[in-house]
C-alpha cells in the first residue's frame, strides 16, 4: 500500500542527523576540502552516533534508513557522507553476505571507539572504465586464492585496515576481504582529486596477493556482487540528493536578497524557473531513491531501479550544482562560497561508481 510517511523513529533519526549535520558537519566542509583530509574528531563523533554499527545488528538493518541518513549528511558535506557510506558499504556487504566468521570479525572491529575506514574496491585505473569489464582477477590457488590487479579511487585507502575487493572469479565475480597489510598489497599515495578531496582517493595494487579460503565474501557459495553495486548506486543517489538539496537551500536566500537592475534575482523568471527546476528534480530524485532503497530493504530485485536512480541523480545533480554556481555569478567561482566546491563534488560523486553502500 503506497505510503510516503516516515515512521516516528525514522523522523527522529533524520532530525538528529540533520541537526548534527548543520552544527558539526557543514561548518567543516570547506576546511576539509582545503586540507584534502577529513577531520578525525568529526569522523569519530559520527562514529559515535553508531549509524554504521546499528545497521550491522540484525534488528537495526534498514537500507531505507541508511539512505535517509546519507542524504542528511550529504546536505552538509558530500565527502563526509561518502566516507561514511564507504565504510557502510564494506560493513553491510559483510553483514548481508558474509559467513558467520566474517560477520563476527566485523563485529569486533565495529567495537572500536573511533571511526573505522573500510572500503569497497571496485573501480579500476583505466579511462572509460566499465563496471562490467573488471580486469582484477582472483584464481583458486591451494587452499585459497591469489589476487592480481589494481583498484582505483578507493576512499581513505591509506587509512583502511581492510578492503573488500570485487574481482573476476571463475565465470563471474566475487568479493574478497583483503587486509591492507597483506603481502603484495600496495596502497599508493592519494592522488589529489577535483572533488571529494578529503576522501584521499588512492589506487591500490594487488600483486599476486595470497588470500585464505575464508576471505571470499559469503564463503564458498560466494555472494551476490550485483547487490553490492545496486546498494552503492542507490547510496550515491542519496548522497547526490543531499548535495542537491544543499544547493537549493543555499541559493534561495541569496537570490531573494541579491538585487540586480532594481529587482531581486528571485523575481527574474529565468532564475525563478531554474530554482523551481532544482526543487522539482531534487524531490523527484528523493522519491526515486526511496523506492530503490525500499526495494533493497524489502528484498526485491533493485538492479533496474538502482541504475535508474543513479543515472537520474547523476545527471541532475551535476546540472543543479552548475546552475547554482551560475546564479551566484562571480561569487560562485570563488572559495568564499561553497558553490565551487559543490560543483567539483557533484562531478566526482556522480562518476565514482561503487564507493558506497546502504
Amino acid at each position, binding site marked *: 500500500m503506497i505510503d510516503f510517511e516516515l515512521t516516528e523513529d525514522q523522523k527522529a533519526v533524520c532530525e538528529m542527523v540533520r541537526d548534527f549535520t548543520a552544527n558539526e558537519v557543514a561548518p567543516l566542509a570547506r576546511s576539509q576540502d582545503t586540507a584534502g583530509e577529513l577531520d578525525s574528531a568529526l569522523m569519530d563523533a559520527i562514529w559515535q552516533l553508531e549509524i554504521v554499527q546499528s545497521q550491522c545488528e540484525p534488528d537495526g538493518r534498514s537500507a531505507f534508513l541508511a539512505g535517509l541518513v546519507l542524504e542528511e549528511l550529504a546536505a552538509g558535506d558530500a565527502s563526509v557522507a561518502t566516507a561514511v557510506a564507504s565504510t557502510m558499504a564494506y560493513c553491510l556487504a559483510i553483514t548481508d553476505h558474509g559467513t558467520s566468521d566474517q560477520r563476527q570479525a566485523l563485529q569486533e572491529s565495529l567495537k572500536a571507539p573511533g571511526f573505522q575506514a573500510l572500503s569497497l574496491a571496485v573501480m579500476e585505473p583505466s579511462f572509460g572504465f566499465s563496471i562490467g569489464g573488471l580486469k582484477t582477477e582472483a584464481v583458486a590457488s591451494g587452499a585459497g586464492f591469489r589476487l592480481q590487479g589494481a583498484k582505483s579511487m578507493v576512499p581513505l585507502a591509506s587509512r583502511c585496515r581492510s578492503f573488500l575487493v570485487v574481482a573476476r572469479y571463475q565465470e563471474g565475480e566475487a568479493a574478497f576481504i583483503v587486509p591492507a597489510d597483506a603481502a603484495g598489497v600496495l596502497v599508493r599515495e592519494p592522488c589529489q582529486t577535483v572533488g571529494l578531496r578529503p576522501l584521499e582517493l588512492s589506487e591500490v595494487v594487488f600483486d599476486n596477493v595470497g588470500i585464505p579460503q575464508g576471505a571470499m565474501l559469503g564463503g564458498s557459495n560466494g555472494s551476490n556482487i550485483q547487490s553490492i553495486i545496486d546498494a552503492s548506486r542507490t547510496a550515491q543517489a542519496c548522497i547526490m540528493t543531499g548535495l542537491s538539496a544543499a544547493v537549493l537551500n543555499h541559493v534561495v536566500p541569496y537570490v531573494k536578497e541579491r538585487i540586480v537592475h532594481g529587482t531581486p534575482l528571485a523575481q527574474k523568471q529565468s532564475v525563478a524557473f531554474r530554482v523551481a527546476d532544482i526543487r522539482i528534480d531534487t524531490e523527484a530524485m528523493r522519491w526515486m531513491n526511496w523506492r530503490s532503497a525500499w526495494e533493497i530493504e524489502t528484498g526485491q530485485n533493485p538492479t533496474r531501479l538502482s541504475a535508474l536512480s543513479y543515472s*537520474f541523480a547523476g545527471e541532475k545533480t551535476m546540472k543543479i550544482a552548475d546552475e547554482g554556481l551560475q546564479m551566484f555569478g562571480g561569487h560562485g567561482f570563488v572559495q568564499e562560497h561553497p558553490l565551487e566546491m559543490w560543483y567539483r563534488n557533484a562531478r566526482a560523486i556522480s562518476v565514482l561508481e561503487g564507493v558506497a553502500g546502504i
Partner: protein
Amino acid sequence: MVDFSLTETDKKLIDLVREENEIGRAFARELDRTMEIEPSRLRGVHPAVADREDPFELLEGVHEETSGLVIAEALMFMASAQDVELRDVGGHEAFGSMVLRNFGTDVQKEKYGHLNLAIGITEPDAGSDPGAMRSYARYDQETDEYVLNGEKIFISFFNKFDGAVALVKVAGKDGSRPEFGTFVLVKGAPGLIESPQMRKLGVRKHELSGFVMQDLRVPAVARLDADFGKTLSNFNHNRPIVSAVALASCRSLLDFTRDKLKAAGVELDYTQGTSGRSALVDRFIRLESLWEASWGTVMRAKWLEHKQGMYSNGYRTEASIAKAMGAKAARDITQGCLEILGPESLSEEYLAEKWFRDVRIADIYEGAGEIQRVLIARDIFGYKKELS
C-alpha cells in the same frame, strides 16, 4: 511507514484498465485519423467492453481496499494510454458539473444538476490569463437576466455535453471594478453559438471545441457563487492526473521501444554502467529514469491529497511539481523514443508516433509548465503575487 507496494485491489484495477486499453487499441488508429466527429460517436459503452466491469466505477466501490482512492485513480491513469474512449466519458470529464456540485445552491443543483457541463475558461487572445479575458456579462435589471458576450475555446467535450460553466467578467455595480462571475450556459439558448471542433496535433479522441456568446441571455439563477479561485481549486487534484495520463502514453511507448529493440537484438542490461552501454541503451535508460522520477512526484502529490483531502491547498506545490515534471518528461521521452526507434517509428502503421503527438498537450493545458514553475517558485520564495 514508507511503502511502495500495491494492494491486490490496486493491481486488479490497474490490470482492468490496462486490459481495456489493449482491447481498445484496435480502434485507436481509426479514431486518431478522424479529425472531426459530429456528433460524438460514443454514447454509452462500446460493445468490445460491454461485458467488462467499468474500472473507474469499480474503484468507487472498492477504494478502501486500495492504497487510497486518489492514489489508485492515478495509478490507473498511469497504466493506460487511453488510446480510445470505450466508455462515454459522461460525468467524469464534466468539470463544469463538478463546479456546480461544489458551489451551486440547492435551487441551482435542482435546475442544472442533471446536465453534463463542460468548463469554459480559455479565450482566443487571453489564454487563461484572467486579466486579459474579454468575455463580459452585464446584468439586465428589467428581465433579471445577465447578457453575455465573448468567446471561449479549448473546451473539452463541449460538443457532446449539454452546456458549460463559463467564467466571464461581470460589470460592477455603479461603475465599480468588474469582478469575475461563473455562469451555467445551456445549449440551445439563442446567442450561444458552438464553434467547430479544433483540429489538433494529438489526443484527437479528446474532443475540443468552443463557443461564441452573442448577446446571450441567461437567468440570474444561472450565476454560481464560485469565483475564479474556487473554480480552479480542484486543479490541485487534476494536475498530477494530467501527468499520469501523459506518463501512460510514455509507458506504452517505452514498452514498445523496449520490445522493438529486443527484436533488433539490443538487450537492456541494467547492471552495466554508462560506459558499457550502447548509445541506444544509454538513451533508453535515461528516458526510463525520467519516467520513474515522474512516477514518484505524481504518487507523492496523490498521497498528500489522500491524506489532506482533494480541496486542501496543502499539496498544491507538490501537485505543480508532479505536473511540471511529468509533462516535461513526456516531451523528452516521446521525442527520445522516436529517435531511438529511428525512421520506422514515423509510420502510422504503429502507435508510436501517435503517443508522441498525444502527450504534447500535457505541458500546455491545466496550467502550462511555465505557470507551474511560477507557482512552485512562489512557494519556495514565499511570494504571493511576485513573478508572473
